[in-house]
């Protein structure tokens, strides 16, 4: 199993001056797994990414990536990692092809696969255009393409779909699925539940620098979530909305009564969401600023 572990984090602690950003967190990620790292702003997600990529050094604890210690073997590890950040940090005055070629060469790779990569990201006709002329979605796709330019074993994605329209989001989800299918391990930080539901095999909830939960999303929803039924009832003043927990015995009786009385206008069931599970576990909202 050890060779299956691609990321091993143990007792990781990091402080920004007097603020403890991470408090002895430990987790592992297996080969081919898609791990969602969830938490509100300030939970410690970006600090974890910075530590995983060797941008900062932990106060305590250890990180091993692909069986090598980070940050001691940073350069070798970075050669096997693809990174994608929320901000499209690309050269606006260069073309899309040039942007990818620079990073391919810095990783010691040839540029022969770049046209294919650009085509996969729907940028085949844009390769010779300056990036400054790209739309936001195109820039973000280029950043994700750049993360794959070194054929990485691990993809680290920090809020990769933030601010994108649904079409671009869906396109990126498909591309991440393809990577998962070829065995790439994906570590993704996000507040976006659509990202998690579309991609993640496992999620870690982070709150105020501590891990609050670490499990498969469905198991978390079963254990901590509450499925609901929303009923719109006709009454003398108009329509009244009522929400009932699905797992309570009284719910069925009450709905049966309303149906007999002919008061039910609409009825919908709603499964527990990870967002609600997060609130139930941490007492905070994921989009909390």
């Amino acid at each position, binding site marked *: 199993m050890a060779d299956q572990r691609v990321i091993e984090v143990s007792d990781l602690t*990091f402080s*920004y001056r007097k603020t403890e950003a991470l408090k002895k967190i430990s987790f592992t990620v297996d080969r081919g797994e898609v791990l969602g790292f969830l938490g509100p702003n300030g939970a410690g997600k970006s*600090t974890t990414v*910075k530590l995983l*990529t060797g*941008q*900062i*050094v932990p106060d305590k604890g250890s990180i091993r990536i692909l069986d090598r210690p980070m940050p001691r073997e940073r*350069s*070798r590890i*970075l*050669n096997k*990692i693809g*990174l994608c*950040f929320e*901000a*499209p*940090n*690309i*050269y*606006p*005055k*260069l073309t899309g092809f*040039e942007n990818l070629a*620079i*990073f391919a*060469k*810095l*990783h*010691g790779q040839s540029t022969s696969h770049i046209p294919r990569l650009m085509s996969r990201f729907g940028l085949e006709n844009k390769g010779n255009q300056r990036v400054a002329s790209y739309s936001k979605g195109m820039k973000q796709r280029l950043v994700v393409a*750049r993360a794959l330019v070194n054929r990485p074993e691990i993809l680290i994605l920090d809020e990769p779909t933030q601010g994108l329209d649904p079409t671009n989001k869906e396109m990126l989800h498909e591309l991440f699925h393809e990577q998962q299918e070829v065995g790439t391990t994906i570590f993704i930080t996000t507040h976006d539940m659509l990202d998690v539901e579309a991609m993640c095999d496992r999620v870690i909830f982070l709150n105020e620098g501590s891990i609050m939960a670490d499990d498969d999303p469905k198991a978390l929803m079963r254990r901590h979530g509450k499925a609901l039924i929303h009923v719109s009832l006709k009454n003398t003043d108009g329509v009244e909305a009522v929400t009932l927990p699905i797992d309570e015995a009284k719910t069925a009786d009450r709905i049966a009564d309303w149906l007999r009385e002919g008061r039910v206008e609409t009825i919908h069931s709603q499964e527990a969401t990870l967002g609600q599970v997060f609130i139930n576990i941490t007492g905070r909202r994921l989009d909390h600023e």
Partner: protein
Amino acid sequence: MSRFWVIFRKDLRVARSEGLFLLIVLWAPLASGVTRWVVSALGRDMATLGLQMIPMWLAMNSILIGIMVLAMLFIMEKEAGTMAALRLTPITLIEIIAAKLTISLFISVASAIALILLNVGAIKIPELIVISTAGMLFMLAAGLLVAQFATSMMQFMTSVRLLMLPLALPMILHFFPHVEAEWLKLIPTYFLVRASHEVVVMNASLADVAGDIGIMLLQGLILLAIAIFTIAKLEKRPS
């Protein structure tokens, strides 16, 4: 291709696409050319005056290009967020600095040659290039250092003017030979002006000005080491 050359070629391409670079590179040669034309039109003898003006133009060229070009290459990376992206590849900080430093020196030498050719023709070019390059090292390091504390090009342009003013003093005082203050020797451009004056006006050889070249190189290397140390330290500082 080595990582150094990847950054070198990329920066050359970026520099070409930025109109501001061209303006900075051509400013001193063009300004000196126009001055020469105006002075000639006024009936003054440019043969002697042109030689006397070379130290001033070389110093101005090194201040403008040295401080601006390398710093601009860094600030543009910072503004676009691409420096962070580069640092997440196997390239080292030293490789990035070396590539940008080399390209800045390359641009400065090209500009200095244009400047000399426009003013006095093809005389003493190798000697003046050696002197100019030695003086340029300090300016490059100074620009690099200031660029680390600027978050935008606008902020850099504002703060760098304060640095340019004292550096320009020896260049101005070159035309007032009776002002011989010891404190002038604390300003690196003093040696650049003095060495180039010795070479073009007094017909000195490189060996005659080796002391001044040595001092300039030493000053430049010390400031460069400080700049690299500062960048490495700032990079590790959590934000």
